[in-house]
């Protein structure tokens, strides 16, 4: 049903110390993991690197094997047209359907600007977006 509309994001725990992000980045490089989009959320003592990568399953196993604290998270991705009100359309549809966006990050993708979102109910969110005629970016397209 979701036909690739639900995308696997990798969430990586990064201690908030000088050099920690560089270390994680070096592991990603060593494992030959290519990131299409990423976002860094930080707190006083740690950060969470959220990344959209090629082959998330393979990357997940490689990172785990390296001792990196990593988690798979379902996110969805919408195309944001370069016009006023584009984000509103998606957010409004979610609001009406009672879907909560837990966090999100915009990224300039290959062809267009996209917005990755972690929502409380991704399956329902995909349905709501499809019903509202908002184009979803699928895992094959990222």
């Amino acid at each position, binding site marked *: 049903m979701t036909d690739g509309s639900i995308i696997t994001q990798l*969430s990586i725990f*990064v*201690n908030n110390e000088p050099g920690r992000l560089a270390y994680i980045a070096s592991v990603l490089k060593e494992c030959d993991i290519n990131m299409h989009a990423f976002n860094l959320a930080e*707190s006083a003592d740690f950060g969470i690197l*959220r990344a959209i990568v090629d082959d998330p399953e393979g990357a997940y196993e490689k990172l785990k094997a390296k001792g990196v604290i990593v988690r798979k998270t379902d996110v969805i991705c919408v195309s944001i047209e370069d016009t006023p009100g584009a984000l509103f359309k998606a957010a409004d549809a979610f609001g009406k359907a009672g879907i909560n966006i837990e966090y999100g990050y915009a990224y300039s993708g290959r062809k267009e600007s996209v917005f990755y979102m972690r929502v409380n109910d991704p399956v329902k969110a995909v349905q709501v977006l499809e019903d509202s005629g908002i184009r979803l970016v699928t895992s094959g397209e990222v």
Partner: protein
Amino acid sequence: MFWNTKIECMPSEELRSLQYRELKSLVNNLYSFNKFYHDRMKAENVHPDDIACLADISKLPFMYKQDLRDNYPTNMFTASNSEVVRYHVSSGTTGKPTLVGYTRNDLGYWTEALARSLTSVGIGSDDTMQVSYGYGLFTGGLGLHYGAEKVGATVLPAGTGSTERQIELIKDLGVTAIACTPSYLVHIGDVAKKMGIDIRRDTKLRKAVLGAEPWSDNMRKHIEETMGVRAYDIYGTSEMAGPMFTECEERNGIHMAGDIVYCEIIDPDSGEVLEEGQKGELVVTMLKKEAMPMIRYRIKDITSIDNEECPCGRTSPRISRISGRSDDMLIIRGINVFPSQIEYTLLRIPQLAGHYMIIVTREGALDRMVIQVEIKEEAFSDKIEDMNKLRAYVEAELKKYLNIAAEVELKAPGELPRFESKAKRVIDKRVF
């Protein structure tokens, strides 16, 4: 000035003979009426008849904080509930707190000790004394309160916190003396300065009785130079009663009133009694206590003893400034914290992996404790909110069990140091 000249200036020989009589009757009593101590003496094969002189006290077995914990709450009490008139509670080394109980006479001797101490530093009925120790379960507030009332001082029971308000009261009420932790007095000085108040010029505060945490002559100098307040060291633990004994005007050691307490200094490893003047672990025997006797109680503070008569005229033995601990107890903002308590609290939280570090610093005048904890892999969430909730939960649990605010830092599994032999989980960067 003396509160009780006869006892305070009693010739040494007489004092020692008084101590022997008190000890003898105490041991007889305990052997006959206290199951805990009777069993312990039996186990060590000591009988009250073996105590034939004061030095024979070394034949008696030691008591430890663990004994208080094992006998929690009142199994060690030698007074009935109708005779016990008060409890105080301090933190234990793990989950259970340490409970101490007092009969009316116990409170009387505690207050008597403080009346002598305050008199010895020149605090009396003309003074207004602000008690800025915590009131409540902690012994500091109520102890100093009753001591200061006893000498006729006007007591302002300020407790802890609301520093700006405390400074206003010092100024408005003409407070002349304060009892608090040394770091809190430095904090008061810093805050007063920010408020545009010069303690020396704008207030009448001239004397401070400071304790409940380690401090140094450097800190004394700093307080006296910046605030114009003469600072005196006070000593005591809840097992003894609470803060009890201070330096006199000579300020060359804390007078440990000989009719109330008998002090020994031992080698912390061998338990052997050391010679006068040698540094070691302080062991106290409380000669008057009724509700909860303390015989050769190992406080774990490191000091030395001086039996010479003090130039002030007092004959009681004096102990030097506490120079450290023979265990790993930390004192954070005047509150005793054992790393084992922190560990106990952390191990009960299922999301944590059990590895932790305790980092203590001093910012301005106040202690700051940061506890780094490793989370379990499955506790990791991609949502900052979940992680912040976990951190807040750990902080709340620590607050609940330690009664002190600690900041928690979450770390990834494997990030904190591993120890092959004895773990060094505490980094104390404070300079006293």
